[in-house]
């Protein structure tokens, strides 16, 4: 039974999504609770799957009982299992938080809304587990198509942002698919394990080089790598409050995971010095994105736009880590990827709660809002510490391994990029902190403003991922050990 768990992680939200129109036909308000129940079951399956994989090793799941070269294979290794747990728990928290947001925007459309949300989440599971590059493409597209629809839900400005996101996302997907086609033409297979045996010997071939460039271009758009990021801030800040956390936390991260799969499981699988130029391309693009994203974040006035640029900067940091082509860098980058997903989730839930309870959407608004709620103030302090990268948060340990990898490979430019990004992150977060706490202090003079009562789901939505930031720091050693063991088989 346990070998079916990876498939169940995908099938539970998928089945819930397609049966939602029938089950919730009488009362569309039930859709939210059905989605929550499905995500609880999905998280349980993901945790059980991680448990068995750590215990019994990698699961290769052949759909329909057909083995890999003929059939469709899912590879549930430790990396995928950890990512699936992170993704499903974050999705659960985000949907739980969304439960007490006003539903006026989706009144009468709740069934399609939740069905699409569940499809997006099942697509995330598919990207994480997919064992061949074409299925990776299919699931990336399921995720992206659902995201276009969800971003457009509020109408108005969001429609324009969603359309722009659609055009850019479709371009990215086409480039990626073109790259996959080149790989298929060069090797005759799309299975990641098979490609890992053939591509490293073909790195001189022009077809493979062109395919690799197209693939990187496509995945670069999907992960919003710095010069290709233009769609992201608008899409994230115009998305409805209920879906922006899940989109911000997971969409670019799974695309980045796909990129890491191509980099290490396909291109770098053979080891040796040949892929070195690829890796130096990756880390220099990452360094550029990290510094550039942080600089742009500094110049934003909207809270969510600032957080979105912060996310772009952190994508760059992760690429700096994995681009060092060492086990430390890869494990550190993957660990930072999980951390960044959690931190983006908190930031966008936080921004959603502020917008909903205090009407705050820009940094200037914070000064007048007089936020005194300890949940909001406390969680922001923790997430600031995490984003800057101070112990005991997960952000510190993630950055630590990235810096360690840069020092090990004597790559001082990458090191400088990480340090500069950290300082810039400090700068733009202190800007918010200062406004937030000054507003809280000023309430002494005009305490007539009643503090809005916070609903349970808001408190859980803020508190659980905030606790996870610290929890990831406390258990960082264990997680990085697992990641190191999982990637030790790669010939670096």
């Amino acid at each position, binding site marked *: 039974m346990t070998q*079916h768990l990876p498939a169940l992680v995908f*099938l539970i939200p998928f089945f819930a999504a397609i049966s939602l129109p029938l089950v919730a036909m009488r009362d569309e308000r039930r859709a939210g609770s059905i989605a929550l129940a499905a995500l609880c079951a999905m998280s349980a399956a993901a945790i059980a799957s991680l448990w068995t994989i750590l215990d019994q090793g990698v699961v290769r799941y052949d759909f329909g009982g057909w083995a890999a070269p003929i059939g469709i294979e899912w590879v549930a290794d430790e990396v995928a299992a950890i990512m699936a747990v992170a993704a499903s728990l974050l999705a659960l928290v985000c949907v739980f938080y969304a439960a007490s947001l006003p539903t006026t925007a989706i009144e009468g459309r709740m069934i399609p809304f939740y069905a699409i949300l569940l499809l997006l989440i099942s697509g995330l599971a598919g990207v994480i587990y997919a064992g061949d590059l074409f299925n990776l493409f299919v699931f990336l597209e399921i995720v992206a198509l659902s995201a276009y629809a969800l971003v457009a839900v509020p109408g108005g400005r969001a429609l324009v942002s969603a359309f722009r996101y659609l055009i850019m996302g479709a371009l990215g997907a086409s480039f990626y698919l073109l790259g996959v086609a080149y790989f298929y033409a060069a090797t005759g297979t799309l299975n990641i394990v098979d490609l890992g045996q053939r591509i490293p010997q073909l790195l001189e071939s022009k077809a493979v080089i062109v395919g690799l460039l197209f693939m990187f271009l496509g995945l670069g758009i999907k992960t919003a790598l710095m010069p290709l990021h233009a769609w992201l801030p608008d899409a994230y800040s115009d998305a409805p409050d209920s879906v922006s956390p899940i989109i911000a936390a997971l969409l670019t991260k799974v695309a980045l995971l796909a990129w890491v799969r191509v980099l290490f499981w396909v291109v770098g699988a053979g080891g040796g010095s040949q892929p070195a130029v690829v890796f130096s391309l990756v880390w220099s693009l990452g360094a550029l994105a990290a510094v550039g994203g942080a600089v742009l974040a500094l110049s934003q006035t909207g809270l969510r736009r600032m957080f979105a640029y912060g996310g772009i900067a952190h994508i760059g940091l992760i690429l700096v880590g994995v681009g060092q082509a060492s086990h430390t860098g890869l494990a550190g980058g993957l660990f930072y990827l999980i951390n960044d997903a959690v931190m983006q989730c908190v930031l966008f839930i936080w921004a959603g709660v502020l917008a909903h309870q205090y009407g705050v959407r820009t940094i200037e608004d914070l000064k007048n809002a007089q936020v005194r709620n300890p949940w909001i103030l406390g969680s922001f302090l923790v997430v600031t510490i995490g984003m800057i990268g101070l112990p005991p948060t997960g952000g510190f340990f993630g950055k630590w391994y990235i810096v360690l990898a840069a020092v090990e490979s004597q790559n001082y430019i990458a090191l400088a990029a990480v340090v500069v990004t950290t300082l810039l992150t400090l700068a733009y977060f202190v800007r918010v902190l200062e406004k937030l706490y000054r507003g809280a202090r000023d309430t002494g003079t005009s305490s007539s403003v009643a503090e809005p009562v916070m609903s349970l789901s808001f408190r859980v939505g803020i508190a659980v991922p905030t606790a996870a930031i610290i929890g990831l720091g406390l258990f960082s050693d264990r997680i990085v050990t697992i990641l190191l063991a999982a990637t030790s088989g790669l010939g670096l």
Partner: protein
Amino acid sequence: MINTPHDSVIVQSSGRFLIPLIQLFGLYVLFFGQYGPGGGFVGGVLLGASLIAGLLIFGPDGTSSETARRVLKIDGFGLIIFAGIGGLCLIGGGEFLNYSSFSIPGIDDSTRRHVGIIVAQIGVALDIAVAAVSIVYSLSDQGEDGSDA
């Protein structure tokens, strides 16, 4: 686009003749998919195309348009059939869509695969047909409930 019936007699009478033919061919492709090229996707496209042709030729009040509108109500039902068959295989102890574990008691292995494939393909065909019709409705200026949007 689909608010009024097409005014040409030629189109109307050839439509009356062609639509059942397309549907018959769609069903043939769907069931032939077990032995050769074909299957749920192509069959579903043909079935959907026949319903779309009905919409274009006879307008929203024709009988085949009535079918198309009813078909829209079961959006997602085909996928439930497909995933349900896969899930039954999972419950039977095999992988998702491993028809040899398709848990119907009293039938042998080859019949299990036969039944499993054909029912899963019918699910796919239904879903594709519904998707094709709903795309036409979304692109036209008419709402899915028959009202002008």
